[in-house]
């Protein structure tokens, strides 16, 4: 998502540096989780092909805020299910950084730095259904063309 936003050219100036920084941190999260899954003898999920609605500067920032919120809710939903403490530690290290991203992006789109005093968890099924709206192909499904 960050890569697409950066490539779209919709964000310019000093703000672009923030977005680049957050994007590169997200790439580090992907690498860390991929390594962790392999280390535990698992197979990391394939990267899905995605398409994001990028209509303008504001909509790009709103998209980032939406995806960061979804990510924060996803971590909050999953931490209670994790049994391995090394995995929990890695997840919490990422989870806190997502929180920092969330307040930064919320402020950029003119919201307060938090919508409330408590974060809301989201269960995996709902997270996946919401994420599905950005997926154009993957998981063995027939690829369909992005709009």
């Amino acid at each position: 998502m960050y890569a697409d936003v950066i490539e779209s050219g919709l964000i310019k100036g000093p703000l672009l540096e923030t977005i680049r920084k957050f994007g590169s941190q997200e790439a580090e999260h992907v690498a860390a989780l991929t390594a962790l899954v392999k280390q535990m003898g698992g197979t990391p999920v394939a990267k899905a092909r995605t398409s994001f609605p990028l209509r303008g500067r504001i909509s790009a920032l709103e998209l980032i805020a939406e995806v960061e919120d979804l990510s924060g809710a996803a971590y909050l939903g999953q931490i209670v299910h994790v049994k391995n403490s090394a995995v929990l530690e890695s997840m919490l290290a990422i989870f806190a950084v997502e929180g920092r991203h969330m307040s930064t992006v919320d402020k950029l789109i003119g919201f307060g730095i938090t919508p409330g005093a408590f974060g809301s968890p989201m269960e995996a099924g709902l997270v996946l259904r919401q994420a599905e709206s950005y997926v154009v192909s993957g998981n063995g499904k027939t690829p369909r063309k992005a709009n």
Partner: protein
Amino acid sequence: MVGPFVRNAVAKTGSDVDTLNFLLAFEYLESAFYGAAYERVRGSHLDFFVGLIADYEMQHDEPLVSMIEGLDGKPVEKPKFDFSYSDDAGLLRLAQLIEETAVGAYSGAMLSIENKEALSLAGSIAQIEARFAGAVRAQNGEDPAPSAFDSPVSEAQVLATLEMFRR
């Protein structure tokens, strides 16, 4: 020197009640800090920013108290704190230290919480502490997320911060 309040908070390290009390102690510090900070900046350009954090931080105490009581524990007493700063910049530097310590305290404490409801509550607060840590850094002209991975703050470091401001 570690006072009785902190010793009681971590007297029997290991149980969820002790961990939640450790977090509650830090939340009391945050409530006290922002309560006083808001009185100072009310009506200034920091009114909204500090007021919002103060409002939400104060909401964190009660659910922790209820959770501790629900686990048949006794919540720690609310201590008195003393924060000294001479200007807005000093206030915000202290806010940054406190928020960073809070995020790290939750990251460390959450590794040992076994009760799922307690872990979920701690997580839902930790996320807001992380939001605040990023926002206060940005307010101070610093990078809101200086690293891709946050590190836990040791229990000893959190306790030292508590003692530093305890009156």
